[in-house]
């Protein structure tokens, strides 16, 4: 098997995640889709790391994870406070700049 297939898989996952972002209204699920896209990127980095024979790709994937973790923390906090004010987790309900 050609390791390039990992890349194809990553592309597929990324696209699925992107479509998810576009069609789902629940902020939490949208967020999960973003995580899916990030993971797809990570897979790419790891696959490239293997192809090029150095660890830089893995390092970047590692940093991505850290950033993703931070992002999740803040993002979920935003969702929670959004839910508190609007009693809804729908991204469509947050279409106005003010309440």
């Amino acid at each position, binding site marked *: 098997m050609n390791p390039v297939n990992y890349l194809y898989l990553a592309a597929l996952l990324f696209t699925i995640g992107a479509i998810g972002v576009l*069609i789902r209204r629940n902020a939490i699920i949208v967020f999960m889709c973003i995580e899916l896209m990030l993971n797809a990127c990570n897979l790419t980095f790891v696959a490239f790391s293997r192809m090029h024979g150095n660890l830089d790709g893995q390092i970047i994937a590692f940093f991505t994870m850290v950033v993703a973790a931070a992002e999740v923390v803040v993002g979920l906090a935003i969702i929670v406070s959004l839910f508190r004010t609007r009693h809804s987790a729908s*991204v*469509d309900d947050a*279409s*106005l700049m003010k309440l």
Partner: protein
Amino acid sequence: MNTENLIALLVAAPLLGAAVLLCGGRALDRVGHLLGTLLAAVSFVIAVVLFSDLVGKSPHDRTLTQHLFSWVPVEGFQADVSFQLDQLSMTFVLLITGVGTLIHMYSIGYMEHDERRRRFFGYLNLFLAAMLLLVLADNYLLLYVGWEGVGLASYLLIGFWQHKPSAATAAKKAFLVNRVGDMGLSIAIMIMFSTFGTFAFKPVFDSVGDTSQGKLTAIGLTLLLAACGKSAQVPLQSWLGDAMEGPTPVSALIHAATMVTAGVYLIVRSGVIFNGAPDAQLATAVVGAVTLMFGAIVGCAKDDIKKALAGSTMSQIGYMVLAAGLGPVGYVFAIMHLVTHGFFKAGLFLGAGSVMHGMNDEVDMRRYGALRKYMPITFATFTLAYLAIIGFPGLSGFFSKDKIIEAAFAKGGTEGWILGITAVVGAAVTAFYMTRIMLMTFFGEKRWVPDEQGNEPHPHEAPSSMTIPMLVLAVGSVFAGGIFSLGDRFLKWLEPVTGHTEGHSPISTGAITGATVACMLIGMGVAWVMYGRRDVPALAPRGSLLTRAARRDLLQDDFNHVVLVRGGEHLTRSLVYVDHTLVDGVVNGTAASVGGLSGRLRKLQNGYVRSYAVSMFGGAAVIIAATLLMRAV
């Protein structure tokens, strides 16, 4: 002291009067009329001094010039404020200042009870100054200044009683019609400038021979247009009748001494140009002939004494223009008739003013009658002027009008016959309408009625400040023509300026004179049959179609109203609409469509994050596609 330097004073004296009277406050109210009259008289005295100086010189050396300053010096364009006094100007100056001064005097009495008398005299002075500037200018542009100045002064005077809407409208009409004429004068000046490079009299006249007849005809016709406006010739005559809205001395001034004579002056002054343009000359003669009949017919039908006299003026000016259109044969006689007309027409108007003065400002002749007993002096002077205007043998009008008729026949050919017969018939009609005025005003039963306030008129003779000018003018009406004709004095006086050729009419002079006198007597007789023998009805009978048309100025006003006024109103209204909807609409439409487009685009900004995400994602896809394509290429 050099007499040339006096020329400017001629203009300056009344101009100063106008400035002082119009700018000075109420403090001058009590002496304003005296000051105005005095300055007019000063001008007259200067004119007499200059006249005696001119008479003392040899006939071909009788031209004085005075250069004041350079007015508009622009590269290739030189307009100066400088004056030229020759025999032609001198004649006019004497007439203007002389008759003008008399009218000033008359106005002292006539306007006694008007609270704005000071301003009236200011305007009168302005009128004199403008008219003097007109006849003294040595170039067409300065003449134009006087020309428009006369228009302004007439505007102010005709509309003097501004609180009357009819007066304001008449004033506006006079100015506007005159402006159409002015258009002709300015085009004439422009053609002169582009042809000769100058518009001063002397160089233009000197180089007339170097240019084509077409150019001269163009100049002549445009000058004729100008003259038509100022002298109330068909087709620009409509303002004259309405101009009677002004106080009566104004009518006298406009009709006798100033304004309407300006057109004749212009044509005679430009005689050299007209001589080189026979077509323009013929047009001038035709305009004169048409107007003389037009005015006479209108004069027959009017019941308003001033409007009847206005028709008469139109007709008499028609004679002058006809004469001027005949070329060197007629120039002198045009001016001679102008001067005699100045006397008797002023006399007639002042007489009419005197009548109105005694009759509570009533102007309808059907409300007069039998006034000869109440106003003997007015009756006497009016009668003399009347005999003069109808050309009664021996009085002024006889000499001058007769010469014009002779000259018209002398034109020769069919034109000569047509013009001559028109002039003769005109004399008959003149006799008719003037006799009609006399009979209706001074003879018959008294027909006056109380005015709207119930005041019974008490006809009385006017004060001496009014009667003295009338007497002086009456003397002039009687003797001027005779004195001028005696030994062809007037002819010899003017000939160096205008030139003169003796006309040879196909029929003998005596026959013409006889025919004219006969026609005059017929006219008088018909009038006597219609108005002397029978009682004059207090209400005008319906009359024939021609009478009714003549009462309405031969429908010319109606034509103007329908075509120009109505048409103009529609034009401006539709243009205002076009400006608002089309010109502005295109701009506003552009703005609206941009706004509409923004409105559409705004809908894309719906606030939904997911919508934005789609666009972002789509954008990313496009960028990738572009990158791939770039690599592929």
